[in-house]
C-alpha cells in the first residue's frame, strides 16, 4: 500500500514535467490547428540558453532563466513569422512538415553550438527534499507545480479576460469570421507561437532543474511525452494539459513499479492509442475541433480534410508524369548501373536507396492517395525486417527470397491494419499522432520481446537471400543484391500503379477528398482506409525484408521514429501520391546524405534546410502531388 501510494507520488512528480511540456502543444494546436513538432526543440533551446547565461556567463540563475525564456519566445514568434505564415495558403500538410524540418535544424544546431555532451545544470532547489512513504518530493517538484499552475492561470485569464485573448480565441474558432470582425488573424497566430515558445523556454529551464542536466537529444523523447499528455487531456484544453500530464506520469510510474521500467513507454503509447480510439477529443477537449474530424460519426463518416488540399482554392500545378519511354530508359540505366558504376560502394548505396524507394512507395500510397499521413512506417518496416531476419537466421537459412518477401509482406500488412484500425476513425493531424503511437508501440515491442526479437541484442549475421526461381542461387555480391532490389521495386511500381489507377485507387482518393460525400455515395470509408493500410503495410514489409538482407544486422535502433520522418521527407520531396516522385525522392535523399558526408557535422542541418526549402518553395514536391 505504501508502495502504491509512493509510486503514485512518483508519477505525479514526473507528470508535472509532462504537463508543463504539454501546454505549448495545446496552445498551438488549439489556435493554429497544427501539431508543432518543433515544440520539443524549443524547450531544448530554452534549456541551453539558460545554461549558457547561468553557467558560461555567470549571470544569476533567475536572470539567466528569464533571458532564456524571453529569447525562446522570440524564436517561437520568428518561426511562425518566417516559415509558417508563408505556408498558410499551401497544402495543409506543409506547416506540419515545416515544423518537422525546423525541429531537425534546431536540434542539430544545438549539438553544433554546445557539443553533443550532457551538461550539468544548476539546480539549487534540488537538494531540498521531503520523504513521503517510500517516495520523496523535492522543492523542484513544487516549483514545477507552482509554475504550471501559474502559467495556466495566467493563460486562462489572458485568453478569457483580455481583448487580445478574445481575439486569439476567435482566431482559434473561426479564422475567417474573426478576420471579418477585424481581428488581425496572422498576428494572433504569431502571438500564439510566441507564447508557445515562452512556455517551451520555461519548460526547458524546469526540465534542466528536474534532471540537473541537459542534453541535446532530449527534445524528441520528452516532446513525444508532451504530445501524449496534451492528447490525453484533450487538445485545445489548457487545464486538460495538466490533468493529461499527471495522468500519464502516474500510469508510467505504476508501469515502472509493477511491470518494469522498460514497459513504461509501451504502456504510455498504448494508453495514447486507446484514448484516441475511445475518446479522440481527450478528457477535456472539445468535440468540435476541426482537426479531430468531430470524433466518430455513424458509419465512420468523418469529414476528412485532405491534408493535401489547401484551405484556400489555388490553381494546382499539374503533376509530372513519366512517359513510358523515359521509364524504360531509366530502368535500363538502373539495370546496367553496376556495370558502369565507379565502384561497388555506389552500387551498395543505390541498392539501399532502392529499398528505401519501395518503402517510400508504400508510404506515398497511404499518405498521398488515401490521405492518411503515417509517421509509424518505420515500425511496420521493422516488422517486415524482423520476420525476414528471424525466419532466415533461426528456422530456414535457405528459404527462397520469394517466400520471405511474401511472409514479411503479410506481416507488414497485419501491422499496417493494426495502425490503420486506430487511424481510420480519425482525421487530420490526429492521424499523424495515432500512427506515431502505433510506430512507437511496434518499436517498443521489438525492444522488450526478447525471446522472439532478442530485444536490444538484435538479429545479426542474416544470410544472403536465396533466389528460388534460379534454383537456389545465393545473392551475396553487392550487384546481385542491387538487382534483386531493382526487380522488386519494378514489380512494386507496376502493381502500385495498377492499384492506384483501379477503382480501388479512385475510391481512396474519393475518401481523401471528401469523406462525407464518399460515405453518402455508399463507399464504406473505413474498409477502404484499412485496405490502403494493408496494401501499404505489405509493401513496407517487403522493403523491410530486403533491408534486413542488405545490412545483415538489425536491432530496434534501426526502426526509430526518425526513420519514419526521413521516409515522410522523401515522399514529400517527390510529391505526395506520386510514385515516380517517391522513387526519385528516395534516390535523391540517400545520394544527398552520401554527398553531404563531406560536410561532416553540418550534414543533418543541411538536410533539414533542404527539406524546409522544398516545403517552402515547392510544397507539392518536386514532381507534384497526385
Amino acid at each position: 500500500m505504501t508502495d502504491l501510494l509512493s509510486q503514485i507520488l512518483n508519477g505525479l512528480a514526473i507528470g508535472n514535467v509532462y504537463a508543463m511540456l504539454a501546454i505549448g502543444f495545446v496552445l498551438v494546436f488549439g489556435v493554429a490547428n497544427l501539431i508543432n513538432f518543433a515544440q520539443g526543440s524549443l524547450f531544448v533551446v530554452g534549456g541551453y540558453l539558460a545554461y549558457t547565461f547561468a553557467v558560461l556567463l555567470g549571470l544569476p540563475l533567475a536572470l539567466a532563466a528569464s533571458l532564456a525564456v524571453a529569447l525562446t519566445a522570440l524564436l517561437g514568434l520568428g518561426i511562425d513569422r518566417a516559415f509558417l505564415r508563408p505556408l498558410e495558403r499551401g497544402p495543409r500538410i506543409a506547416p506540419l512538415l515545416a515544423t518537422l524540418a525546423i525541429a531537425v535544424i534546431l536540434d542539430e544546431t544545438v549539438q553544433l553550438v554546445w557539443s553533443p555532451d550532457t551538461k550539468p545544470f544548476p539546480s539549487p532547489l534540488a537538494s531540498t527534499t521531503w520523504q513521503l512513504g517510500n517516495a520523496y518530493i523535492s522543492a523542484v517538484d513544487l516549483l514545477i507545480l507552482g509554475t504550471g499552475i501559474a502559467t495556466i492561470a495566467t493563460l486562462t485569464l489572458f485568453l478569457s479576460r483580455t481583448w487580445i485573448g478574445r481575439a486569439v480565441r476567435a482566431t482559434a474558432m473561426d479564422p475567417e469570421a474573426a478576420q471579418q470582425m477585424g481581428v488581425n488573424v496572422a498576428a494572433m497566430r504569431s502571438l500564439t507561437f510566441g507564447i508557445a515558445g515562452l512556455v517551451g523556454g520555461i519548460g526547458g529551464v524546469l526540465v534542466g532543474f528536474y534532471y540537473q542536466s541537459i542534453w541535446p537529444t532530449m527534445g524528441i523523447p520528452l516532446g513525444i511525452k508532451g504530445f501524449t499528455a496534451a492528447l490525453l487531456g484533450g487538445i485545445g484544453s489548457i487545464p486538460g494539459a495538466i490533468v493529461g500530464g499527471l495522468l500519464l506520469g502516474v500510469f508510467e510510474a505504476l508501469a515502472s513499479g509493477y511491470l518494469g521500467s522498460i514497459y513504461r513507454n509501451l504502456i504510455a503509447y498504448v494508453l495514447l492509442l486507446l484514448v484516441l480510439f475511445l475518446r479522440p477529443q481527450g478528457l477535456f477537449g472539445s468535440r468540435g475541433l476541426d482537426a479531430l474530424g468531430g470524433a466518430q460519426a455513424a458509419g465512420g463518416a468523418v469529414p476528412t480534410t485532405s491534408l493535401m488540399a489547401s484551405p484556400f482554392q489555388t490553381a494546382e500545378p499539374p503533376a509530372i508524369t513519366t512517359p513510358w519511354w523515359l521509364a524504360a530508359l531509366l530502368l535500363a540505366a538502373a539495370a546496367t548501373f553496376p556495370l558502369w558504376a565507379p565502384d561497388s560502394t555506389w552500387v551498395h548505396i543505390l541498392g539501399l536507396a532502392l529499398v528505401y524507394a519501395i518503402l517510400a512507395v508504400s508510404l506515398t500510397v497511404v499518405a498521398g492517395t488515401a490521405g492518411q499521413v503515417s509517421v509509424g512506417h518505420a515500425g511496420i518496416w521493422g516488422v517486415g525486417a524482423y520476420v525476414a531476419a528471424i525466419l532466415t537466421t533461426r528456422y530456414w537459412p535457405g528459404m527462397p527470397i520469394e517466400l520471405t518477401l511474401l511472409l514479411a509482406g503479410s506481416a507488414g500488412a497485419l501491422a499496417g491494419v493494426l495502425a490503420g484500425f486506430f487511424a481510420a476513425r480519425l482525421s487530420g493531424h490526429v492521424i499523424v499522432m495515432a500512427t506515431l503511437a502505433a510506430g512507437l508501440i511496434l518499436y517498443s515491442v521489438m525492444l522488450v520481446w526478447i525471446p522472439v526479437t532478442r530485444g536490444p541484442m538484435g538479429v545479426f549475421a542474416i544470410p544472403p537471400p536465396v533466389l528460388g526461381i534460379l534454383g537456389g542461387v545465393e545473392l551475396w555480391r553487392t550487384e546481385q543484391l542491387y538487382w534483386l532490389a531493382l526487380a522488386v521495386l519494378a514489380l512494386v511500381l507496376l502493381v502500385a500503379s495498377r492499384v492506384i489507377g483501379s477503382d480501388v485507387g479512385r475510391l481512396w482518393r474519393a475518401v481523401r477528398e471528401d469523406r462525407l460525400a464518399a460515405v453518402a455515395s455508399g463507399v464504406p470509408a473505413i474498409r477502404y482506409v484499412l485496405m490502403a493500410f494493408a496494401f501499404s503495410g505489405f509493401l513496407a514489409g517487403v522493403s523491410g525484408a530486403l533491408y534486413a538482407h542488405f545490412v545483415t544486422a538489425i536491432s530496434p535502433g534501426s526502426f526509430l521514429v526518425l526513420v519514419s520522418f526521413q521516409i515522410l521527407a522523401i515522399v514529400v520531396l517527390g510529391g505526395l501520391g506520386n510514385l515516380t516522385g517517391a522513387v526519385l525522392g528516395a534516390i535523391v535523399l540517400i545520394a544527398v546524405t552520401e554527398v553531404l558526408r563531406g560536410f561532416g557535422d553540418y550534414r543533418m542541418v543541411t538536410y533539414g534546410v533542404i527539406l524546409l526549402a522544398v516545403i517552402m518553395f515547392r510544397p507539392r514536391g518536386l514532381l507534384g502531388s497526385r
Partner: protein
Amino acid sequence: MRMKTLALALAAGLAAVASTSVAQEPIVIGLSAPLTGDYAEYGNNFKRAIDLHVEQINAAGGVAGRPLEIVESDDRSDSAQTTAIAQRYVNDPEILAVIGSFASTPSMAAAPIYQRAGVVQLCPSCSHPDYTKIGEFMFRNTTTQQIEAPAIADFVVEDLGAKTIMVVHRQDDWGLSASGNFIARAEELGAEIVANEAFLETERDFRPVITQLRSLDPDVLHVAMFFTEAAILAQQLQAAGIDIPVVTTTSMFNPQYIVLGGEAVEGHIVPATFFPGNPDPNVQAFVEEYEGRYDIAADSFAAIAYDSVGILAAAIEHVAGQGQEVTRAAIQKAMFEMEPYAGVSGVAAFNEVGDVVKEITWLTIENGEFTVLER
C-alpha cells in the same frame, strides 16, 4: 623557456628528418565513428584520441618507416551508414585496417563486409558478446562483460560481503550481458539478487525504482548503465536520502560522471581498466598530451581508441619486422602473433576469437576525484 624552444626546434628538426626519410606511401587506416547524433560524445572522443596518437606516431617516424594516415567517416551509429562506409573502405586498396564503430549493432552490420574482404575491423568499444564471433577479422579493445562482470561480482560478494544485491542495467546488448554475467556469478557465490531492473537508454526518471529499492533494502546496488543516465540516477538516490554502497561498471569511469553527478556520486566504487592517475609514465604522457591539447579530461573511451591505433601500429611493425609486405591479411595474422601490447588502458592480449583480456583496477570517488580504493 630557452629549453622549451630548443626542444621544439629539435622536435621540428627530427620531424623534418623523419618526413624526408619516409617519403613513401602512407599506411592508411579507416575510422568509422558516430561524429554526430546520439552517440557523438563518444565518437568525438575516439577521433580526438586517434588524431593525437597518429600525430605522435608520425612525429616519431611513422610505422615501419611509413607515415600513418587516418581516413574518417561519420556513421551516426546507424547500420545503413556503417555498411555503406564499410563498402567504401574495403573497395579502397589503400586502406589496410579499420577502427570502428562505437556501438555494437552498427559495427556488427558492417562486420560481414570487412570479414568477406579480409580487412581487420578493430572496434575499440564493441561489447556485444557475438561481435568477434562474426569472423577472424573482428577484434575488440574493450574487455567483454563475460570477463569483466564476474570479476565485479567477485568483488561485491567476497570483498564487500554483500548478501543481497539489487541490479539496475541499461536495456541494450551491453547492459544485458553485464547484468546477466554479474548475476550468474553473484548467485554462484551465494548472494541473493533481490531485484534486476532494466532501463531504456532514454530513461531519466528513476524514482519508481528508487521506491522499490527503499522497500527491498539490499546491501549493495550494482549499476550497469552509461555515465550520463547513471549520474542522474545517483542524484535521485541522493534526493531520496538513500545511502547504499553503489558498485558500478567500468562505463562510469569517466570524469563527466563526477561533473554531472557532483556530490551524489561520492563514495561510488568504480572498476576501471584505464586510470589517468596511474603513475605509469606512458599513461601520464597520454593524459598530459590529451588534456593539454583538447582541454577535456581523458576518459576510458579516449584511452581505448588511443590504444586501438597503437595496437594496429604494433601489428604492422610486427609484419614489417618479419620482413613481410604489409597487407590486410598479414596485419590480421600479426594481431594474434605479436607480443601483448602495453597501452594506456592496460596490457592488451587477444584470445583466440579476438577478444581482449585486461586487468581491473578498483577506484572510488572521494572529494570529487577518482582515487584508488584502499582495500
